[in-house]
C-alpha cells in the first residue's frame, strides 16, 4: 500500500471515530436543560463525628445545606430550572432568583454568574437524563467536598 494511502487512512479513521462518537452523544448543555429538584446535600469527606453530635442521620442533608451553603445563593433554592438561553431560575419557598449558567471545560464545569458579578463553579460529577450531581469545595470550618444531588422533574 502506498504510504500516503496509509496516512490518509490513519487520519480518516481518527476523524471518523470523532464524528461517530460526537453524533452518538448528547451535549451536556442539552441534557442539563429543564427542571431539576434538589434531593440531597452530602459531604464526600464528611467529618462523621461532627455530624453525629450535631444532627441526626435523617436531617444530615439539611444540616449540611445550612452549614456548607450559607454563603451561596443556591442555598435557598430547591428547584433549578435551566433555560436554553443561558438563564437559570432558582426557586425556593417564597424565593425566586434568575442567574446565568454556562458549561465549560470538556463539559465538566458548571459556571453560575450572578448580577453582582459573583461567579461560582461546580463540578458536574454526574449528568444523566434524570440525575444530576454537582460538587463544590467548601470552606475550612466545614471541611471537605460537598455534593448536591438532583432529579429531573421536567
Amino acid at each position, binding site marked *: 500500500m502506498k504510504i500516503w494511502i496509509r496516512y490518509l487512512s490513519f*487520519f480518516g479513521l*481518527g476523524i471518523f*471515530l*470523532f464524528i461517530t*462518537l*460526537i453524533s*452518538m*452523544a*448528547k*451535549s*451536556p*448543555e442539552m441534557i442539563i436543560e429543564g427542571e431539576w429538584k434538589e434531593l440531597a446535600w452530602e459531604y464526600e469527606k464528611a467529618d462523621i463525628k461532627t455530624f453525629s453530635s450535631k444532627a441526626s442521620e435523617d436531617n444530615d442533608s439539611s444540616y449540611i445545606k445550612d452549614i456548607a451553603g450559607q454563603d451561596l445563593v443556591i442555598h435557598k433554592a430547591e428547584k433549578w430550572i435551566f433555560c436554553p438561553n*443561558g438563564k437559570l431560575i432558582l426557586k425556593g419557598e417564597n424565593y425566586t432568583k434568575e442567574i446565568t449558567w*454556562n*458549561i*465549560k*471545560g*470538556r*463539559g*465538566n*464545569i458548571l*459556571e453560575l454568574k450572578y448580577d453582582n458579578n459573583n461567579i461560582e*463553579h461546580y463540578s458536574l460529577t454526574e449528568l444523566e437524563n434524570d440525575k444530576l450531581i454537582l460538587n463544590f469545595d467548601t470552606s475550612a470550618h466545614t471541611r471537605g467536598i460537598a455534593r448536591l444531588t438532583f432529579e429531573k422533574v421536567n
Partner: protein
Amino acid sequence: MLRKYSNSRSLSDNIKLGTLSAFSAGMVNIGSLLLFFSFSSNVTGHYAILAAEIVKGNLYQIAVVFSWIFLFFLGSFVSNLFVIHLNQKNSYIAHSIPLILEIICLMMVGFYGEYFYKETLAETEILLALMLFAMGLQNGLTASISNFTVKTTHLTGTTTDLGILFSMFTKKEFRNNEALKGRAKLLLYITAFYLIGAITAGFTYVYLNFKMFYLVSLVLIVIIIYDLSKLKLKMYWHQRKLIRLNFDNVIRMEKGKEESVAS
C-alpha cells in the same frame, strides 16, 4: 534559535529557544485553565481523563478529549513535516513556519475570545482544540530541531530528567561532565521559565483576559525576529566583506595597470 538543526545547535541556542517557548507554553496552559477550565498543553492528564471517561461511558467527553489529544498529535506531525521537508531548502523558513502557524492559532483564540466568545461549550472546546494544536506545533518544532533535547509544553519528562541528573551529580565523574551540566542547566531554565510564564498568566489574566494570547504571540514573534535579525546582520557583514574585497581587487588592478604603463 531557529536557524540551526539537530547536533549543530549549541547549548546557548537550546537555552534561548527553551526559555522563550517554555514561558509561552506556561502562559497558554494556565490561561486555558483559568479561562476554559482545562489544560491545553499537558497531554498526559488528558490521557488519564480519556481513560476515566471511557470507564464512565461518557461518549461526549470521550469524543472531545480524544479530539484534543489527536490535535496535539497533529500539531506535532505538521511541525515536523515542515522541518524535514523544507530543511534542505531553507532551514530558517522550515523552522519558522510552525511558529507562524502557532501564532495564527493563538491570535485566533485571542481575537475570537475578545470579540465573539459567548461562553458556549462548543466554543470553549473549539478554542481549546486550537490551543492544543498550537502546543503540539510548538513541542513538535522544539523537539525536532533540538534532536529531542528541548520539550517545553509539559514538565513531566523535564522533571524526571532533572531528578536523574541530580542523582548522577552525587558522583564526581558526572559532576565534572560538561555535557551533563549543560543538560541540567537547560532543563532548569525550561522549568523556571515555564513556571514564570504560568505565574505571569495567573496574575495578569484578570486584566488581560483574552489579550493574554497576544502577549504569548509577541514572545513567539521575538523568537522569529531574533534569528531574522541575526541573519540580516550576517548578510550585512557578508556584503560589506564582499564590497571590501571587490574594492581591494579594483585598487590592486588599478595599481597593476599603473605599473605596467610605467614599465
